[in-house]
């Protein structure tokens, strides 16, 4: 278990990167606190796996340093770093039995046989595979194989960190939930530093204490699930997290009000003069369809998704989504939207602006 520090870290897969765009992972400074569970969230190809492989030492960064408990390990091999990592697709040693698969990392480190046997039994119980311990791994189903991979990742007790690279992709939905719960309880029990890569927001938000959102090779926000929901620091976080994502409306802002196509919108904070690409960001949960006040919209479609309704509407040519409670009646007279003033965020060139209290 260790604190992991990324110092000025960046990586490019090209030998001689010329511009910023050549970097798969842009410059990054961050401390991963010892014993916390992190989720690394982002769309495919945003640099999540690159970052994970750099931490585990499968990849050496083109710039910067990695420190484990303030000890520089940038050039250390994977073995020296003593990291466990589980990959997206199951990796099992086909010719070995399930038991030997689970024991493999321990035996490679020369642990005594009695300890290995006890530990394997414990892990097998955790992943629910005690009854197939003597079976060969090759004949098992994909999700059973992935459970073995997870088990192999967890079998060493003294690892510095546990890294998961979208480990539940091949697992059935109900098993996913069970395994995620087990990972969480494991985390509570042993307090390993865990980093969990995923592109699934539900997975990220339920697993982690802190979620790191990546976009285009850059970390755009690190925060608790609640912070990500209420105060997305970047428009990407706004529309990537939440279903549907945050509404973004081009506007001009001055003082504590904004103007959208000539109509005025009140803001919760006071802003200075903003020049550039200014947008208002409002979560669909904080938009209400009304009869009287607000901005004029044209309702296009109402989707009933069970617990609530999603209203897709048109606001001055922009699509806007509204979440309404289950029992809400939508009448044809509702042609305007109102925003919850305190929940309107202002973005300048995609980054959230902090205003002063009004």
């Amino acid at each position, binding site marked *: 278990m260790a604190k992991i520090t990324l110092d000025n870290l960046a990586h490019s897969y090209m030998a001689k990167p010329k511009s910023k765009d050549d970097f798969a992972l842009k410059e990054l400074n961050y401390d991963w606190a010892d014993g916390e569970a992190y989720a690394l969230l982002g769309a495919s190809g945003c640099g999540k796996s690159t970052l994970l*492989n750099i931490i585990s030492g499968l990849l050496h960064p083109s710039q910067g340093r990695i420190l484990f408990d303030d000890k520089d390990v940038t050039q250390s091999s*994977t073995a020296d770093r003593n990291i*466990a990592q589980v990959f997206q697709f199951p990796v099992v040693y*086909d010719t*070995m039995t399930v038991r030997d698969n689970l024991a493999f*990392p321990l035996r*490679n480190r020369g642990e005594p046989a009695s300890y290995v046997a006890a530990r394997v039994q414990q892990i097998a119980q955790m992943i629910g595979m005690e009854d197939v311990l003597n*079976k060969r791994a090759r004949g098992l189903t994909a999700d059973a194989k992935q459970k073995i991979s997870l088990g*192999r*990742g967890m079998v060493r007790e003294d690892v510095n960190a546990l890294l998961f690279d979208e480990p539940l992709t091949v697992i059935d939905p109900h098993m996913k939930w069970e395994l995620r719960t087990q990972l969480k309880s494991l985390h509570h029990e042993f307090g390993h530093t865990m980093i969990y890569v995923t592109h699934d927001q539900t997975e990220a938000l339920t697993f982690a204490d802190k979620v790191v959102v990546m976009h285009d090779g850059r970390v755009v926000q690190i925060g608790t699930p609640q912070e990500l929901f209420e105060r997305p620091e970047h428009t990407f976080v706004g529309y990537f997290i939440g279903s549907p994502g945050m509404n973004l409306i081009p506007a001009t802002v001055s003082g504590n009000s904004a103007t959208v196509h000539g109509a005025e919108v009140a803001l919760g904070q006071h802003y200075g003069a903003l020049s550039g690409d200014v947008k208002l960001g409002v979560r669909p949960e904080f938009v209400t369809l009304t009869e009287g006040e607000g901005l004029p919209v044209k309702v296009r479609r109402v989707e009933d998704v069970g617990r609530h309704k999603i209203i897709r509407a048109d606001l001055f040519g922009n699509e806007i989504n509204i979440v309404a409670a289950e029992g809400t009646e939508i009448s044809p007279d509702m042609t305007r939207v109102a925003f919850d003033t305190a929940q309107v965020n202002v973005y300048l060139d995609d980054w959230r602006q902090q205003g002063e209290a009004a």
Partner: protein
Amino acid sequence: MNKTVNQKAWFLVLPVLLLVAFSAVIPLMTVVNYSVQDTFGQNQFFWAGLEWFEEMLASDRMWNALGRQLMFSGIILAIEIPLGIFVALNMPKSGFWSSFCLVVMSLPLLIPWNVVGTIWQIFGRVDIGLLGYTLDKMGISYNYTQDIFAAWATVVVMDVWHWTSLVALLAFAGLKSIPDAYYQAAKIDQASRWKVFRFIELPKMAGVLMIAILLRFMDSFMIYTEPFVVTGGGPGNATTLLSIDLVKMALGQFDLGPAAAFSLMYFLVILLISWVFYTVMTTLDNKGG
């Protein structure tokens, strides 16, 4: 739903039946025909029953040739398979040099058998051949026309030169199919190089290696042209392998009956060994799976 029974469907397999009949069954039957008859010329044959088979089974000649043949196949398999795997493991995995290696290694496979024989026949000559001349000047006695060991060494090295590439290419294909994640997981699990080979690479190559062993066994068991061109089966009968002996008997001495009996038994031995090998390998493969 009832299926319509239409016996006319059998006509659809007729073309293939005819093709196989002309390419395999009928030629084989002529051999069977010769093996149970005797002739004194003038195209007059009479029934000999299993006499030729008995005679061949009782003769040292066939058993000796079979012994030499098994030794030859055994030696070349013992060299080519590990060497091929070793080459494949050490080849560049991608980029220009990978393609370069593949092309260079494919070259021997493209050379016709008798040309390979001729190359080595000249290469090994003491008077004008690079290999023979060099060895001779170094004071090593090397003469494949006189010395049994030299003759065997030449034939074996020639086969290794000609066919190791095949094993290497197949093994390389097997290696290339292993996803990176396996190597990464092995690093995470702190597996040694040997364990990576033993538990990742070898199991993933098992399928293609089985094909490689079968191909090399069958080909080497039927080898004729190359040793015939280099040594002609000599010195004495030292490198007279099964098919060389068979040709001597059938075409040299024109003993059609014994030669036919010989070839049938030869054919059955190849079939038997291949079958046993395949069965054992697939059983091992599925065990506990």
